């Protein structure tokens, strides 16, 4: 028995070995090296520079704030549709789900571009509103912080809806039925049965959307004017100023803060 267990474990370990090797070589090692560079000698100065008041710290704070707001709002907006898609049957449900999941594959630049098409200075929305009302409302809105936020929402909503739908699908129907027989309306069922059950799923969806927003680079590349975010600054420092120390320190802080929040949110789940 022990021998077959050992053989079984050995086989398992062997099968999982390439994954381990890849994770170490392509993720853990580069990140550790990044940390090493940033935290030693001249790099340490760069880290202090990044954390001191100024452009870089603003970028980090902007990233954190924007990502948190986008994650929170997208999860909030996603709960309803996710619940409906998971629990209700109606004609056209699959079509709706396909439509909502389509933007999942879009890169940030595409989302940014779509926003410009809609709400740039000569976007479709200002053009139409201009013709209808004589005032070009939302002209240039894509380039404001609000516009950036809307773009992030567009980027995150499909992810949030799909992730939450998976979770809601697993909820046992019996609980639902029981609550219904006890007279609870659909809203009450959602609030008192659904949401508490959903708490872990909500947390992990928050984690996923937050991480994706923090890492998002393309959206800001296209849309941001004065409002800067951390990935943009890393890119600028790297390619424009050849300032690898600051770029490295900033990249490290960006990675560290994202991973920290992600772990915090995922703690206590399974």
């Amino acid at each position, binding site marked *: 028995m022990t021998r077959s267990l050992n053989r079984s474990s050995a086989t398992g370990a062997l099968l999982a070995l*390439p994954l381990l090797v890849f994770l170490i070589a392509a993720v853990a090692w580069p990140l550790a090296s990044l940390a090493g560079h940033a935290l030693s000698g001249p790099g340490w100065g760069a880290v202090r520079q990044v954390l001191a008041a100024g452009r870089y710290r603003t970028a980090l704070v902007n990233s954190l704030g924007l990502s948190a707001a986008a994650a929170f709002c997208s999860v909030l907006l996603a709960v309803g549709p996710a619940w409906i898609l998971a629990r209700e049957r109606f004609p056209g449900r699959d079509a709706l789900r396909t439509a909502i999941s389509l933007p999942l594959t879009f890169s940030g630049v595409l989302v940014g571009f779509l926003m410009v098409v809609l709400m740039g200075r000569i976007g479709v929305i200002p053009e139409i509103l201009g013709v209808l009302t004589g005032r070009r409302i939302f002209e240039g809105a894509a380039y404001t912080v609000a516009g950036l936020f809307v773009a992030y929402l567009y980027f995150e909503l499909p992810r949030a809806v799909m992730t939450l739908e*998976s979770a809601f*699908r697993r909820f046992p129907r019996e609980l639902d039925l029981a609550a219904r027989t006890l007279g609870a309306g659909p809203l009450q069922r959602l609030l008192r049965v659904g949401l508490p059950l959903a708490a872990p799923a909500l947390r992990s969806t928050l984690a996923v959307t937050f991480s994706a927003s923090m890492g998002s*680079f*393309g959206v800001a590349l296209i849309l941001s004017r004065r409002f800067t975010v951390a990935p943009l600054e890393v890119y600028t420092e*790297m390619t424009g100023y050849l300032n690898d120390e600051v770029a490295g320190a900033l990249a490290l802080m960006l990675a560290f803060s994202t991973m920290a929040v992600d772990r915090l949110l995922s703690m206590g789940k399974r």
Partner: protein
Amino acid sequence: MSTAIVRRAGIAATAVLALALLTPIVVTAAGAFSRAEWYGRRSEGAEVQSVPDLFRYVAGIWGGALLRSVEIVAAVVPLALAIGAPAAWAFRRRPFPGSRLLESIALVPLAVPGVALAFSLIQVAGHTPRFALLVAGHLAYTLPMVVKTVTNAVETFDPRLEPAARSLGATGWETAKRVTVPLLTPALVLSALLVFAVSWGEFNVSFLLATPLVQTFPAALYVTYTTNSFPVAAAATLIFLAPVVPALLAIQALGGEAFHRGLQA
């Protein structure tokens, strides 16, 4: 009564969301075929006068990037499956000390911003060919999906099937080929499609790792958005979307449970 109303309201809200998400794409697609006067002037002047010209122009300039994206996907999909699927199966059927830990660590790359990963890869392996670094970056973000999808699938089929085959005299290899793989095929195909969809659209890592010779199509998309006119940019966007839409439809068709499990964080 109120149940019906809430239900209708919920469905309406979902439909509105779907519409809101689709509209920008439709508008942009229409832009590729639009008259220049409506969206602004084309700046490619005499070279681009008709719709087929548009697509020819995009393919002419960005054909290389398109090819590179195809090559990368062709490398990433099989590699992601080869590295991720056996490990995922092992996590459930041949657990070993540390397998739980490894399984959760496999998900961590999703929390690493692409820019940071790309920067650290350049720092640590600057002389490695860019193509290899690109594949590595893409793998980091697609392996978690393969692991999740396959572990979930393994959980669903009867754990007695494989030992039964063994007891009937099949070797480990034969069992894998004739029992495990066929059972896992839907999950493997689904994973392949997911990996394809993600890798095709990956920008964060790819943009930083791009060079004029080795750049992916999303990186080229960025350049068209800034330096080309709207109809050209829209045409490039359509070319980008062309393989992705069927993949997503296929995921939905195969989809149902398996799709959602693959996405669960």
